[in-house]
């Protein structure tokens, strides 16, 4: 029972993070129909920028107690930084390719990803040394249920993701710009004929997706404080799993991304706890293969008929 609950808490909390990253993949895909491979690097930068901001403000001292205010400040800083970076990347790397074949954009995305990873490793930037994210949240147990310690960080992760998710839902379904985003994702050309400035909508999409990935980076670093170097495979693997979450949920579908993230998190943690921890990545990618075989449009996606 204890093990079950503990696995559930971890699965939900990491699953929420996958979902948060998956949103960026799915939103960009929904509008531009390409996979932004640099998205996992934005997530990585979100974690690293959080670390750098916290250190610069002198909050890395382990003697100082953390506080929710500090955590929120660092979260906001990381989101802002990555939002601006997402805007710049779209502007410089993807916008010039708007009329180019999709494959060119895809290759460019891989290029951007490698560029971020490798410049990140430069000694005067992030370097190649792993770092430790300071605990901005008091590392306390919030409550104990059936001998399971529910840590504050897990609660913060889940609540933050719920709030961000709610804000995104509101934005997409209740505001003018959200309506424009949905219109652009359905038919870019017609949206432009209706007076929607398509390029601006695309920029906004990148800013939102990137800042959500940054939030995920901060939360991830809060839960797992060991920060690997920028080009380390763990970041790529985490990004890849979030991408799987987006595909499993139905790429292009916002709720699907969140649902896919939770599902992936659960399968990973339950598989690791009850089957074998060595195969936890295998469960995730097996699920991907299964979904692609049975329901290629994803669990919540609607099949699209290709127009010929």
């Amino acid at each position, binding site marked *: 029972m204890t093990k079950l609950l503990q696995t559930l808490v971890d699965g939900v909390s990491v699953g929420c993070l996958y979902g948060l990253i998956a949103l960026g993949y799915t939103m960009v895909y929904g509008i531009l129909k390409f996979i932004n491979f640099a998205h996992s690097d934005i997530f990585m930068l979100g974690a690293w920028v959080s670390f750098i901001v916290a250190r610069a403000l002198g909050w890395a001292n382990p003697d100082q107690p953390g506080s929710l205010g500090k955590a929120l400040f660092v979260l906001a800083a990381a989101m802002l930084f990555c939002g601006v970076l997402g805007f710049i990347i779209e502007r410089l790397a993807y916008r010039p390719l708007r009329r180019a074949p999709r494959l060119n954009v895809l290759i460019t995305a891989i290029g951007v990803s490698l560029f971020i990873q490798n410049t990140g490793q430069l000694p005067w930037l992030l370097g190649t040394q792993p770092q430790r994210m300071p605990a901005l949240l008091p590392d306390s147990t919030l409550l104990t249920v059936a001998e399971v310690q529910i840590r504050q960080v897990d609660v913060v992760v889940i609540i933050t993701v719920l709030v961000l998710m709610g804000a995104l839902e509101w934005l997409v379904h209740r505001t*003018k710009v959200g*309506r*424009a985003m*949905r*219109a652009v*994702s*359905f*038919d870019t*050309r*017609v*949206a*432009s*004929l*209706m*007076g*929607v*400035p*398509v*390029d601006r909508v695309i920029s906004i999409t990148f800013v939102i997706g990137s800042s959500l990935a940054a939030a995920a980076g901060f939360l991830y670093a809060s839960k797992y404080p060991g920060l690997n170097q920028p080009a380390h495979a763990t970041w790529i693997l985490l990004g890849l799993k979030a991408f799987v979450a987006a595909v499993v949920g139905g790429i292009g579908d916002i709720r699907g991304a969140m649902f896919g993230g939770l599902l992936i998190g659960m399968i990973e943690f339950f598989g690791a706890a009850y089957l074998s921890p060595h195969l936890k990545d295998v469960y995730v990618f097996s699920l991907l293969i299964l979904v692609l075989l049975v329901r290629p449009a994803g669990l919540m996606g609607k099949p699209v008929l290709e127009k010929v």
Partner: protein
Amino acid sequence: MPLLEISGLDVYYGAIHALRSIDLAVEERQIVTLIGGNGAGKSTTLRTVSGLLRPTRGSIKLDGKSIVGLPPHEIVRRGVAHAPEGRGIFANLTVDENLEIGAYSRRDDRAAIDRDRERSLELFPRLRERLRQNAGTLSGGEQQMLAIARALVARPRLLLLDEPSLGLAPQVVKTIFHIIREINQAGTTILLVEQNAHMALHVAHRGYVLEVGRIVKSDDARNLASSDDVRKAYLGGV
């Protein structure tokens, strides 16, 4: 001065020379129709006016000012609304949201937008019953009505209509054309592209006949409708 004036327009669609030196003028408050067979370049003309395609030569002037090279949303802001071929309904949005998107470029106050929205719904009462419905669930005729209503919410001075009769039952076509005339009588200038030359020439003031990228004839709609070669080629007459 005509509201829309196109002169010497050349447009390429990839390697295809789709429009060859087109001259066309739309006077304020008129309905001008562009008729011709499949692939004649009718839709290409509209797409070039609304900025989706760029001409290689020639000019397009709205109110005497060139609009060539402007992005589509900027052209909408200057008063040109385009109800595209195939209707271009956002099937993932509700009918109401589709209408709201039509008003996207407007910067005036909410009350003015609501007035125009209301006027559009008066023209198409069937849409009012379906406001909360996903637009993808509408019938073909209703989707065409929505496409026109949505374009009207932008409060255009020039309305571009691309094949509004396509795939609709004759009775629905009649209704749509009746409303097109009503919209024009309320003051909106219309450039109408149609394969149904009979209906188009019936509502239009002027007509242009397009054949493989060239304008081969232009005249008052009434004269065109009674001219022998037009009757033979497009009206199924003898």
